């Protein structure tokens, strides 16, 4: 944990201890306890909004679920605070998973509308199912909170709330700072690249939704105990907007931002009461002002300004450079890998983009795949990396069938790829990009991440050493701490190769790696590809650049109209009449150029 964050946690803890000692009356303390509850919701919502980039405008619905679950358990079954909270958390978690399910199909605004719909459905189920919820009159008579039979005093309940918020903030911080947080950020910036590195994007989104739901659920149970009465009109769409605004105002993806945002938006309505009729208007105006003046939120902007004033070093520290000597690691699984495709066919509607392609990349070789525009090269790449499902045919590595597997599963089985139009995680640093590349090899679990166990520390340290080594291999150590999107184009291409290598692939798939590079850069790219192959990684190179292919390829396969028309050594393919015809047209039509060697 950085020193700044440690200080922040100390300050938060000090504040939480000081407030009850200085509170003048019960109303003041009660308001502060309301803030603690909202803070809990915001901290969880930040995992969803800040890290995973998904907007939920239905958080009040989850909050309501938790409230009703807690209240019903307490009133009807006499559950204590702990049982009621756990019950609320469990029910909220189930709905968190259910809410995550639509993200498989829809994102962005559509998802926002799904969450809005969810909130409205919960509100109306609470009205309709009056036997359980008390309908519009609500549930009253929620007992004072007690734990294991001991009744909690006002201060005791305060202690529970304060400790929960502090621990939740700490857990969220640890989550962000682990393989899970990194994976969430990666998924939010380029899902396709994250999947190509073995990250299960769906699992990450489910985790984020569950984190947001569990905290909101527990907060709901606490709320019902604090208020002793709940009714459907407490959980409306505008509350969902307020919860989201807490995260944005404080600073999405920051550790303390949501807590700060919750604090401001708990106390602000108290002050806005002076405006009387204008209260709601002022609230809307404030929301608009935040979006214009502080789109990154208070702490996000503060961090940005701090970076401007004291720019951190762009390169690596001396201690890190020590690790750079690792360099390019040998291939992960000893023996070199062979990729075989049999009759691979991809159809889009009536169009056959790839027709019964048979191709064999021998272990440890550099195999180039070429063909005119529209020949089906990209389709081939996307089919064997799992982006498209082949309509017919099969493919596999070393006899292991990969057909029908999903993108991240194929990646975990040893196939890494780069992209024609680079797909970096733009806002992550160069080093973080490579860390994401290597993280499907990590084995520590969620509990290790949340508790920062020694195992987590050890694995993260090893991952970092490997990543620094790869940065040294592609000569990017001087840029390690820069945001990836600020890199010049040529360096972005190299970073993508380092990131793909970090997954320790058996087969590296390079999709037009030389496009847009200078002659000099292509020269060093050729060296790099040779070194990768020498380390035992098979390379499939999709390229237009003839010089590069002639310089590095062991075998060249030519595609035209979705079919393999030649596959042999470069020199042979270069003189193949069918290849020449594919590129330059039929010799009959251009009589002058008919001297094609047969």
């Amino acid at each position, binding site marked *: 944990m950085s020193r700044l964050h440690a200080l922040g946690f100390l300050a938060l803890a000090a504040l939480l201890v000081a407030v009850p000692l200085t509170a003048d009356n019960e109303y003041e303390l009660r308001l502060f306890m309301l803030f603690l509850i909202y803070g809990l919701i915001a901290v969880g919502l930040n995992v969803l909004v800040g890290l995973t980039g998904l907007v939920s405008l239905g958080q009040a619905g989850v909050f309501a679920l938790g409230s009703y679950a807690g209240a019903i358990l307490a009133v009807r079954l006499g559950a204590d605070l702990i049982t009621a909270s756990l019950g609320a958390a469990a029910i909220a978690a189930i709905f968190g998973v259910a809410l995550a399910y639509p993200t498989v199909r829809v994102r962005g605004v559509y998802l926002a*509308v799904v969450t809005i719909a969810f909130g409205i459905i919960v509100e109306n189920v609470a009205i309709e199912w009056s036997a359980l919820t008390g309908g519009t009159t609500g549930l009253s008579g929620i007992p004072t909170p007690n734990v294991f039979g001991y009744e909690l005093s006002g201060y005791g309940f305060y202690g529970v709330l304060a400790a929960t918020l502090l621990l939740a903030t700490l857990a969220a911080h640890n989550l962000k700072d682990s393989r899970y947080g990194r994976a969430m950020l990666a998924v939010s910036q380029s899902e396709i690249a994250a999947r190509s590195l073995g990250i299960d994007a769906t699992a990450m989104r489910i985790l984020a939704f569950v984190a947001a739901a569990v905290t909101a659920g527990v907060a709901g149970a606490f709320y019902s105990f604090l208020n002793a009465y709940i009714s459907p009109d407490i959980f409306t769409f505008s509350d969902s907007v307020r919860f989201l605004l807490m995260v944005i105002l404080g600073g999405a993806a920051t550790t303390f931002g949501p807590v700060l945002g919750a604090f401001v938006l708990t106390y602000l309505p108290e002050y806005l009461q002076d405006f009387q009729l204008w209260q709601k208007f002022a609230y809307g105006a404030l929301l*608009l002002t935040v*979006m214009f003046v502080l789109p990154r939120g208070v702490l996000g902007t503060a961090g940005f300004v701090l970076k401007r004033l004291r720019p951190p070093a762009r390169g690596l520290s001396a201690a890190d450079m020590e690790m750079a000597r690792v360099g390019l690691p040998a291939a992960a699984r000893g023996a070199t890998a062979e990729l075989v495709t049999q009759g691979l066919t991809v159809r889009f509607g009536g169009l056959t983009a790839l027709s019964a392609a048979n191709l064999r990349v021998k272990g440890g070789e550099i195999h180039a795949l070429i063909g005119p525009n529209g020949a089906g090269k990209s389709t081939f790449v*996307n089919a064997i990396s799992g982006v498209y499902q082949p309509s017919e045919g099969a493919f596999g590595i070393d006899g292991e069938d990969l057909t029908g597997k999903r993108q991240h599963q194929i990646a975990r089985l040893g196939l890494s790829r780069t992209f024609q139009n680079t797909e970096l995680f733009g806002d992550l640093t160069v080093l973080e990009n490579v860390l994401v590349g290597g993280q499907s090899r990590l084995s520590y679990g969620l509990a290790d991440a949340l508790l920062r166990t020694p195992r987590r520390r050890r694995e993260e340290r090893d991952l970092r050493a490997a990543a620094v080594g790869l940065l040294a291999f592609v000569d990017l150590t001087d840029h390690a701490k820069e945001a990836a999107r600020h890199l010049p184009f040529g360096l972005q291409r190299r970073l993508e190769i380092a990131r793909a290598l970090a997954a320790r692939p058996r087969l590296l798939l390079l999709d037009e790696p030389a496009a847009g590079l200078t002659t000099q850069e292509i020269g060093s790219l050729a060296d790099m590809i040779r070194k990768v192959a020498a380390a035992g990684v098979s390379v499939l190179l999709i390229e237009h650049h003839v010089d590069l292919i002639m310089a590095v390829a062991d075998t060249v396969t030519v595609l035209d109209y979705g079919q393999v028309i030649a596959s042999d050594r470069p020199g042979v393919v270069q003189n193949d009449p069918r290849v020449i015809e594919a590129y330059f047209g039929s010799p009959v039509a251009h009589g002058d150029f008919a001297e094609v060697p047969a």
Partner: protein
Amino acid sequence: MTTILQYTLSGLAIGGVYALVALGFHIMWSTAKAVNFAHGDTLMIGAVLAVMGVDAGMPVWLACGLSILAGGAFGVALERIAVRPFTAEANSIGWMLSTIAIGIMAESLATMQFGGFSRALHSPGVDRPLNVFGAGVYAQELLIPAVAVALTLGLGLMQKRTLIGRAMRAVAHDKRAAALMGVNVGRIVAISFGLSALLGAGAGVLVAPVIQASATMGVLLGLKGFAVAIIGGITSAPGVLVAGLLFGVLEKFVEGYISTAAREIVAFSVMIAVLLVFPQGLFGKRETVKV
């Protein structure tokens, strides 16, 4: 039988309102890939201003005309202030929250001017109920779906035949290419927001005699309009129209046979269910990913 006919006709009326609101979402989304989350408040502005105009002694037609124009102006201004500054960003949080903010402000202003209670607009369309095979409906209720159908057809014609309509389609297809062809993209987006706001305010004026006009009427109608747009497939105007009418009828039946709360539960559950099965809506076009 009469009950079924009654529910169908009333359902078509409210469905026509949803269709008009959803048509606005369709127009905005097509050109800007962003929408006005306060679009329901455009409807509210149309309804509330019309009632206030009549209060001030204007004839109904003038009050309605002026309030529709005011709604259109609101749409154009909102696009300029709250949408355009944020459309360059990759995620949609920016314009979602900024348009919600404008909606909150509009609603608060309306509450102050109009008061916190609901009032109906007096229109000749609701003077006396007509008897249609035993079901009692107002002429106004029959008018709404007819207007929705006519405007959808008109929109289709405009998009095919007029220069502005073609420019709108070009912008919807590829903003940059349209700009290179000399289309003023900013102006086309502003026009599309204005046009959708005219439809929204028009829906407000049409529905104000049937349901009560109030400062808070916009939120739920707006959300349902958006739900309808998504169900129909936000890229398809006829799809949105059909979905809107069906949605209204479905709602009336659930409301009639069960309850108002059940109406909201069923309506929004249907939306989620449709999205899960048809992510691009019932009549929308699927967008393919390319890497």
